[in-house]
């Protein structure tokens, strides 16, 4: 496989996954410019190591690279203000949706954004990307038992903060 053939195959296999890659990166680094950079960096890194992966395995493989690139970035970014990040969440989706839906979406987004990174990562991979425990364990590089306990605690915390938000709205 020469380099041009490799590029053609890589683009065919991997560009369809860009939505998933971006969603994960955006949830990990919590802002748009960094998420863009992360996805681009992940694609370049993936291309270097690409030798023709396929299907679901390819998806887990790319998401693992995205996750690693994001974690490297987060480690470097020492000052880490969660207040600032919460304000940084634009709702750039579905301008046509009504206000009620918008406020629900904003509530869910800020609740998820304020979860600890480890919990947020497994929730995004499980509930949004619908990956299996095995795939999540490969991506996050922790045992399946840890994946499970992070999911359990993440769900619990998210349920509590959503409940609090709803109560606040009702008062």
């Amino acid at each position: 496989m020469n380099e041009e053939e490799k590029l053609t195959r890589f683009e065919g296999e991997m560009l369809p996954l860009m939505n998933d890659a971006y969603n994960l990166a955006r949830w990990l680094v919590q802002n748009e410019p960094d998420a863009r950079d992360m996805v681009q960096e992940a694609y370049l890194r993936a291309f270097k190591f690409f030798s023709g992966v396929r299907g679901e395995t390819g998806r887990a493989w790319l998401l693992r690279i995205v996750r690693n690139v994001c974690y490297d970035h987060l480690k470097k970014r020492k000052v880490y203000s969660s207040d600032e990040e919460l304000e940084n969440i634009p709702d750039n989706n579905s301008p046509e949706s009504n206000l009620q839906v918008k406020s629900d979406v904003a509530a869910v987004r800020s609740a998820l954004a304020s979860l600890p990174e480890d919990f947020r990562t497994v929730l995004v991979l499980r509930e949004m990307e619908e990956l299996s425990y095995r795939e999540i364990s490969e991506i996050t590089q922790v045992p399946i038992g840890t994946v499970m306990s992070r999911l359990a605690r993440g769900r619990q915390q998210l349920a509590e903060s959503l409940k609090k938000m709803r109560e606040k709205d009702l008062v």
Partner: protein
Amino acid sequence: MTCDELHEQLEPFFDNELGLAEAQKIQQHLEQCPTCEAIYAAGLAVREALQKPEVRFTPPGDLRSQIRAELSKQVRPTPQRRWRLPAFEIPNWLLPSLAGAAAVLVLWFGFNIFPTANRSSNGLLATVTAQLVSDHMRSLLPDHLIDVVSTDQHTVKPWFAGKLSFSPPVYDLSSQGFKLIGGRLDYLGNQEIAAVVFQHGHHYINLFVWPKSESTYPADTLVQKEGFNIIGWEANGLTMCAITDAAPDTLKTFVDLQKKSHMSAE
């Protein structure tokens, strides 16, 4: 089963990672125990909230082209390599088998690499592919995707009838994950062709249909161009060509479903 035992297995149950027997035990416990049922319901509420499509983030529109530009910088055109003689000596006993191998290679190359009859059709194929890719990309611009908006095949098919001299097959495959969302007229060269549009998750599939001519598309071969995946086939004197930014396996599934619907419709 006790509540503590259930808590240990609740996550894998919730995520469909348990065997049938264990799952049934949990199901039974949940039906009898309101406390555990409440925990389960809270998990479901979280799942429902997170799976709203609006909660996902979608990439900025220009990210794809930016990544492609960066990737292409990684690849320089392959230089023409010079043939070099091997720097080692070939033992005499190997010579006859090498000669045999060479003869096989000559035959192989002669028949496969230079099929002269196919040369011109390859050029044509490249032109057709390039046009379909640009049709597909144009269709993804805002308000360009669909002329007739309908998820009903009995609305989309007659809409084409008034506009084209042929009748493209239109099948709704929403139950299999490929939702029919409408149709559009498009062009291949000067020829008007049909575009039937499907949605799969956040990906779109354009199914282009035109009467079979001398410019046939290679059947059932995955063609990849500019990051899009394309598969063509023929049915009832029509050339069908599906193009998408979804993964190759997804496209293959879509094409198989189209063919099956077509066969059962006849």
